[in-house]
């Protein structure tokens, strides 16, 4: 049993494909979707987005946006969406170190929130990258268009 998955950002459409299962991190926790799910709408948190199709599993990095789940269709309107192999590990690492260092200093509350968000985004990106390079990692290069 499979359903239609659409991944889009404001700039372009990344993927339209028939898949078996997706897992995402909403603001109220992680959830998985199989065909025939109750229709619901939720907001996305920063996290991994996992897609399973047949024997293959793909991972994406997602930060913010909306997911619409219908019984035979899932639509992800993401603010930031990167294919797992598109993630720039060097940049993420730098961003995490920067944020980590900055967070040790005293600062205004809203600046702190920005740094915390940056820190979380970088950590999730790095986690995805680490899994890719780990031996026995079964995550495959996901489909979808590459960078411009």
């Amino acid at each position: 049993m499979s359903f239609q998955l659409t991944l889009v950002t404001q700039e372009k459409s990344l993927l339209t494909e028939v898949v078996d299962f997706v897992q995402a991190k909403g603001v109220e926790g992680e959830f998985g979707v199989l065909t025939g799910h109750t229709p619901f709408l939720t907001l996305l948190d920063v996290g991994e987005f996992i897609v399973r199709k047949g024997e293959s599993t793909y991972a994406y990095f997602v930060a913010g946006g909306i997911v619409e789940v219908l019984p035979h269709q899932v639509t992800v309107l993401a603010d930031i969406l990167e294919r797992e192999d598109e993630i720039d590990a060097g940049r993420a690492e730098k961003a995490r170190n920067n944020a980590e260092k900055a967070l040790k200093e005293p600062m205004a509350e809203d600046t702190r929130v920005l740094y915390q968000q940056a820190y979380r985004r970088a950590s999730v990106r790095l986690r995805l990258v680490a899994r890719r390079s780990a031996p026995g990692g079964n995550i495959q290069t996901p489909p979808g268009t590459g960078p411009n």
Partner: protein
Amino acid sequence: MASLRSIRTRIKSVKNTRQITKAMEMVASAKMRRAQQRVLDTRPYADRIHEILVRMGTRSSFSTHPYFQVKPVKKVGIVLVSTDRGLCGPINSNLFRSILKFMGERPEVEFEFVTIGKKGRDFVRRSGRKLVGVVDGVKDRGPITEILPATQVVIEEFADKGEWQEVWIFYTQFISIMSQKPMMERILPIKPEHLQPKEGAELSGEYLYEPDDSREILDVLLPRYFETIIFQRVLENFASEYSARMVAMKNATTNAKEVIYGLTLTYNKLRQANITKEISEISSGAEAIQQG
């Protein structure tokens, strides 16, 4: 009468100009195709978010959300999308003329501006209207984040402070390479009839909301909807800019060719006249010697 040398210099300089306008024409045409492609790329998101809003709208009423509030209009915000650079034909001046006309028709309201593009910013400054937000240097292949400062100002003035009761966007619509049209659209308050389901659209059962207040989801969806609308207009304006520039530069190249043709003709005539004069001088000199 111009000397041979001065004509030669002019021909050279016009040839240089022709080379430049030719290059600009080709660059503009390549950029135009890319800009058109980017406009198309934003459609899926816009269509999807529209579908979701339509499905939500059939159940929850939008009427309480600030983005839909229709109030008596005292102040209107205008998002003015123009180009950063000139040499692109009349598209900016046509757009500004349509704004002046629009403002002339509503003398009782005040107008304030958010501009995307330097030409529009200069126009607003010249006209002495209030400029509350300026974004320039947006790149044609840049991410949507480049225009977000403009949308933030709009949301602040309209929804948070309630300063503006209506927001309009002015930009140049791309119709074809030969034709671009100044456009104006009211983007806020959102007209609920825009979110009516199309006939035959599939509407399936109730949504569950997570967080379970649909208002919170609307608070995320609507700004995105609205950002996408502005982003699309900005990209479309790029397509218009490049096609207008392409045509303007093509005309300039053709003109340069004509000027070169005319100058070359004059040059050759003058050269011939000079030679004839010289020969007749020599032959009359020789004749004088023989007779002497």
